[in-house]
């Protein structure tokens, strides 16, 4: 299992980074996820990758999200760390990493997790559903709301469409 965990580590860390917005917290969350998965191996029939994503998401909700309010109040000091990864360069027109991460922080936990798993990790709705233990229909509607919200926050949508 250790070998498999090491193989999955980059994907789990990427996911952790999308949840925390901090490279430091992402590494930290990855390590906590690894520790937890070693103590509680995946139940029979659950793929290790999904199990790790689920643990990572749960640890984030339990241990990191409580700091969100404080972070927002403190002008997002952690975003400084994003710049270590990618500088301050604009990634699309005027939109910067900082703005995207700030927008992601405004999403409800599940919307953020789902969007990360689909857009970043390339999971199917079915895979997300079994990872987060929610119905596929819920994945579909929450993902749609997450995309619409992010698009709105980042001012991508000039035109409206029936929801």
């Amino acid at each position, binding site marked *: 299992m*250790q070998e498999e*965990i*090491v193989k999955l*580590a*980059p994907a789990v*860390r*990427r996911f952790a*980074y*999308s949840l925390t917005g901090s*490279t*430091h917290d*992402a590494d*930290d969350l*990855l*390590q906590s996820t*690894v*520790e937890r998965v*070693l*103590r*509680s191996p995946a139940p029979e029939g659950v793929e290790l990758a999904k199990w790790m994503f689920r643990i990572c998401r749960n640890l984030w909700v339990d*241990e990191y999200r409580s*700091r969100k309010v*404080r*972070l927002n109040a*403190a002008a997002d*000091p*952690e975003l400084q760390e994003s710049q270590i*990864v*990618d500088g301050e360069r604009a*990634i*699309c027109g005027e*939109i910067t*990493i900082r703005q*995207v*991460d700030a927008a*992601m922080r405004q999403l409800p936990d599940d919307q953020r997790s789902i*969007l*990360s798993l*689909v*857009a*970043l990790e390339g999971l*199917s*709705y079915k895979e997300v559903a079994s990872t987060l233990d929610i119905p596929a229909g819920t994945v*579909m*509607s929450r*993902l*749609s*709301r*997450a*995309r*619409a919200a*992010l*698009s709105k926050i980042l001012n*991508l*949508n*000039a*035109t409206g*469409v*029936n*929801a």
Partner: protein
Amino acid sequence: MNITDTMLSAFLDAELAEAEMEQVRSALAEDEHLADHLAELAMVDQLVRDTYAPIEQLPIPELALSPAAPTGATAQIIALPLWRRASRALQRPMAAAAAVALAIGLVINIERGENGAADGSWEQVAASLETGRSGIRQQLADGSEVLPQLSFVNHDGEYCRQFYRAGGGSAAQGIACRDADGWQLRNSVPVQPLTTADSYQTATAHNVLEQLLDDMIASGPLDADGEAAAIASQWQPVP
């Protein structure tokens, strides 16, 4: 046919039934605004990838891969977050001190010498651990302050204590265990000095410390009576 945001979003992931995929395709062909909107939703995914994928450029940290926790009935207890166990097992003042310390994670590097002792004043810290009750701050001769927070028995039957120490503009949290030679510092969690600005970083220390305690602790923390008895016995190992 009304194409909803949900359909459009699922279309993007090719997650609709084929008939619905076809409906969306037809609508997109006719409605320019709808096509624009699809592009906006697709842009969201691209932005998310551009924002978070760059972490792959950083090396993966070294992972601790050895399973440490015991299995069976004890694992149930150990799986509980420590602060919760602490709150339950301790009397109120101690519980408050331990829970607050763990939650806020007042963990700052202990300056350790080669032998693992804190520094020249370790004897003073040890003396505080020997007689001080958890939750009660003690002033040391050098002006620093020691706060024993939690007492427990490790797997070797030795008594151990978690404590907080502050002085000279820095502070530390550590765990020491009592053997025949006295109190031995077993570990400290190195983190950056705590300031108001970087208080958000303390979860690392919190996690590391919790893991350490989980690895060492044989059962729950001592309650106030248990601790008083241990102090009275000069921390004689538990048979």
